[in-house]
């Protein structure tokens, strides 16, 4: 394939999820089938509301912000800041030293922003009166504030935005990064997504929409079971993922090694129902075809799909049909990260993009956990039980959202002169 546009390479990763802080350790945990799901402990906001949740590590504002700037900053922004700090450190990139601040962009999304902080302030207003509402509420909870805080902290002065497309928000951010690099609008893009939905009002809304898994109180780790016959919904989770995406020659000029190239993106819209996908997965298939087209690859070159795979009854079947529509009889290897992290909503697409980058760089595919008996309606080449080893030339990551937003991202072998060693898993 002739490349007439600048290649976009992933040079840094940061994840903050129910499996802990740090992308490499998280990938190892996924490959070993470790679950990050548990019953919310006593004292947690969701104690007594749901039987299983994906709870990320504690984080104090003072860990990521100066003392006077951390006031009322919601957890979604704190987790995004931690992931961004880690991703930039991993890339060895200091804005201003290694990149022109005006040529660095930040696109970090959230589905809903700081609703937990909003809920607490609303409660205080009712119980204590109007003066309980702080002027710091808005810069603490607006969905753009993860991107803004990262920009302020790291001196990023180029393009910035936050895409709010529910469960596709993180993937949309990565897609925007690919476009910014391809069309020459930035040399480096800090991109990703974050979500902190573990408050009772949000959890009950998802539960009452019949979206959450139920009946797994005795075994919270078993609650998220994508493509399994006994699946009955997703597990609500929180976390953030951030990637440093860089023009390949910019990375080469500073001697940075790449994990994987961000080859292409595809996006589509179901234009169907507010919360249900088109049953045939037509929108999802259109997104995957778009990613292959912008990446200049054919379906037979794709070795792995990191599925959206939330474990809802309808969603997993629609995604299976979409994969079949694009790939025919030859299914690439498929697995769902959400089987172990739960569904991080606007954070998922970014965390799963990081998983794909590591899968390509290490030649290792993490399994789908809890896939004990594959639903015949979800018949694909599932990676289950153990991680699968072997080179992966290209991988897709799917994200589909309430509202009918579909995004598929395409990853391939890093085109930088030096690439990340195949450390840890796969060596």
């Amino acid at each position, binding site marked *: 394939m002739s490349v007439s546009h600048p290649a976009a390479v992933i040079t840094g990763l940061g994840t903050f999820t129910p499996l802990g802080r740090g992308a490499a350790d998280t990938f190892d945990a996924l490959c070993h089938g470790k679950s990050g799901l548990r019953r919310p402990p006593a004292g947690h906001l969701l104690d007594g509301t749901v039987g299983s949740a994906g709870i990320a590590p504690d984080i104090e504002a003072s860990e990521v912000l100066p*003392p*006077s700037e*951390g*006031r009322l900053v919601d957890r979604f922004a704190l987790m995004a800041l931690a992931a961004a700090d880690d991703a930039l450190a991993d890339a060895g990139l200091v804005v201003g030293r290694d990149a022109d601040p005006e040529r660095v962009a930040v696109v970090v999304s959230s589905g809903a922003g700081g609703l937990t902080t909003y809920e607490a302030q609303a409660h205080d207003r009712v119980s204590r*009166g109007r*003066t309980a509402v*702080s*002027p*710091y509420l808005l*810069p603490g909870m607006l969905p753009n504030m993860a991107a803004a805080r990262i920009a302020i902290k790291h001196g990023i002065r180029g393009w910035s935005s936050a895409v709010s497309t529910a469960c596709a928000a993180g993937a949309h951010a990565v897609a925007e990064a690919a476009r910014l690099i391809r069309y020459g609008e930035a040399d480096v893009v800090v991109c990703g997504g974050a979500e902190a939905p573990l408050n009772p009002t949000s959890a009950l809304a998802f539960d009452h929409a019949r979206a959450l898994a139920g009946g797994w109180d005795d075994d919270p780790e078993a609650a998220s079971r994508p493509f399994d016959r006994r699946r009955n919904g997703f597990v609500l989770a929180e976390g953030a993922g951030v990637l440093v995406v860089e023009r390949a020659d910019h990375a080469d000029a500073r001697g940075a090694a790449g994990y994987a190239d961000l080859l292409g993106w595809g996006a589509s819209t179901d234009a169907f129902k507010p919360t249900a996908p088109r049953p045939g997965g037509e929108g999802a298939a259109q997104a995957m075809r778009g990613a292959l087209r912008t990446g200049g690859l054919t379906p037979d070159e794709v070795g792995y799909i990191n599925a959206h795979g939330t474990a809802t009854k309808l969603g997993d079947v629609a995604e299976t049909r979409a994969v079949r529509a694009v790939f025919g009889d030859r299914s690439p290897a498929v697995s769902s990260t959400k089987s172990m992290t739960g569904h991080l909503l606007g954070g998922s697409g970014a965390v799963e993009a990081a998983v794909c980058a590591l899968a390509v760089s290490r030649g290792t595919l993490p399994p789908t956990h809890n896939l004990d008996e594959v639903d015949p309606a979800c018949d694909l080449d599932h990676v289950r039980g153990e991680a699968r080893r072997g080179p992966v030339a290209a991988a897709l990551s799917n994200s589909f959202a309430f509202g009918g937003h579909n995004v598929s991202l395409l990853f391939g072998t890093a085109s930088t002169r030096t690439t990340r060693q195949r450390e840890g898993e796969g060596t």
Partner: protein
Amino acid sequence: MSAEVEKFIIEALENMNYDVSEVTGDTPLGPAGLDLESLSVAEIAIQVEDTYGVKFEEDEMESVALLTVSGLVKEIVDRAAAAAAAR
């Protein structure tokens, strides 16, 4: 009343994570001292309004931010006295 108001303001600053260990009445609220963000000034104004019934209008916020701690205390005490006299 002044000592009580000063204590109230310093406690409010402390609750907002400002380092108040070296704050005195002469400490400016602005860049030469505490370097309060505009939202911090607004938050203090709301708490003052709630506790002392003294209101600072939006177009006054900039000049409030240029006061010292003692200057702000005097402003609150004077306004509270004026409000009491008007009742």
